[in-house]
């Protein structure tokens, strides 16, 4: 019951670095333990937006479904491909992309948007990240209903391979948490970061095989090989369509994950204590 807690600060010596890292790790642990809190706040974030509307959060599903169907019909025409083949591909790609882009788009306000909390009460900073990711996962789950609709309509069955999408999605969530943590932190200090990220995100949608199939890119293949988003999407998309991602995809995703985790760890350990001063 009686916990002793001491906070101090000193110059950047080696032991101070260790202390910073230890506090950052403790922050994540304490934050995870507060799951009833961020679980509820994350849900509320979504409910608040759709309160008193008839469909509630199902509005997300409805607008996503309209987008998938209309883009699917038109692009299948433009690219002259079978709609049975294209629509499921587009559907899963857009679902995953929607998840990724909403994280990138809103990560910039992760901490600045929670200023009222940060300045009034001491919570582990990771709570804000958990809350953010949780509400994104809930939205993804709502949208994911469309996938089953597509499966039924086109009478396809991905088979046991689909199970591979689960660990891949878990990795995607982990990457999202890391990226939103360091983007949110850096954006609290430099207010142009969200703008930069937003304009990059817009381009990524078009240069990544989401609305076009990877096979259509016959030249400049490196544009795909070195596009991290392609690999992150592919490891989730391919299994859901009953295909196996290539080993390139997996290697790339592991490298991306290691990079994001290291960067998030470094930045969080170094600047965690400054967040309340920056927001």
């Amino acid at each position: 019951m009686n916990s002793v807690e001491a906070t101090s600060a000193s110059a950047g010596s080696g032991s101070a670095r260790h202390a910073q890292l230890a506090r950052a790790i403790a922050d994540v642990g304490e934050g995870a333990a507060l799951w009833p809190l961020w679980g509820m706040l994350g849900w509320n974030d979504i409910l608040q937006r759709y309160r008193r509307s008839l469909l509630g959060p199902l509005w997300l599903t409805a607008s996503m479904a309209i987008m998938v169907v209309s883009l699917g019909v038109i692009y299948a025409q433009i690219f002259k491909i079978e709609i049975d083949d294209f629509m499921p591909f587009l559907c899963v790609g857009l679902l995953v992309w929607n998840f990724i882009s909403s994280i990138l788009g809103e990560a910039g306000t992760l901490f600045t948007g929670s200023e009222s909390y940060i300045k009034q009460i001491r919570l582990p900073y990771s709570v804000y990240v958990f809350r953010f990711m949780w509400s994104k996962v809930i939205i993804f789950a709502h949208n994911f209903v469309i996938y089953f609709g597509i499966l039924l309509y086109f009478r396809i069955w991905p088979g046991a391979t689909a199970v591979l999408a689960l660990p891949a999605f878990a990795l995607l969530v982990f990457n999202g948490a890391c990226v939103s943590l360091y983007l949110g932190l850096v954006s609290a200090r430099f207010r142009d970061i969200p703008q930069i990220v937003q304009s990059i995100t817009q381009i990524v949608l078009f240069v990544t095989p989401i609305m076009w199939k990877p096979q259509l890119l016959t030249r400049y293949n490196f544009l795909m090989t070195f596009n991290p988003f392609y690999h992150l999407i592919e490891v989730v998309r391919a299994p859901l369509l009953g295909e196996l991602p290539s080993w390139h995809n997996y290697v790339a995703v592991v490298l991306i994950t290691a990079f994001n985790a290291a960067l998030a760890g470094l930045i969080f350990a170094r600047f965690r204590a400054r967040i309340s001063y920056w927001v």
Partner: protein
Amino acid sequence: MTPMTQPVLALDRVTVSFPVYLGGSRSLKKRLLSQGSAGRIARDANDRVIVDALHEVSLALESGDRLALIGANGAGKTTLLRVMAGIYEPVSGTVTVRGRISPMFDIGLGIDTDLSGYDNIRIRGLLLGLSATEIDARLPDIAEFTELGDYLEMPVRTYSSGMMLRLTFAVATCFEPEILLMDEWILAGDAHFMARARARIDAFVAKANVLVLASHNLDVCRKWCNKGVWLQRGEIRAIGEIEDVIDEYSAASA
């Protein structure tokens, strides 16, 4: 030191300074420019102003202490409260805390105005680190203290600020925190509420806990507290028995 005399809350030469990012220096462009070109632009672009909010503040509170923070606007009262609450980690110095802290700075924090009073009690309880079962166990007591009755079923949108205050105060004090931190908004309650709040604080401090109150109202400080700290420009001008500190403060500002 024996465990009995160990302070519940101790600050040792705590210094807090805020970087003030004036428009431009917060942007990446200026930062990059100032990194890239040594000299003139660096001075222009990187015009970081630093406000020393607290300077080498040391104090120790033991069980049963009720401390009043007094001082002019901008003296650092709220910053000091936030340092105690662990919101600002000091630039230098140490803060040692033994026990649970309940900060009451913002009555609106975490309040979702479309939810009922009961739901908001749960949210605030979770924010203060209570578990769902702990909140449920204390719910009757909280409801009783708020005297809101059937209003607790209504959306908080329909509450007056005084009603919100009662709800917040009831939740903040329901779990007998070791340390209660209060900013001066507490004075917004009506006389009836103030008397009840006072009784609750007295009962709470009688259980050997600590209260820290920041206020401009010297009468309230006298009534509620036994110790005082006079802050001026982020430094402690006087510390000691409440009457002595108030006398010194009044003499200086008269």
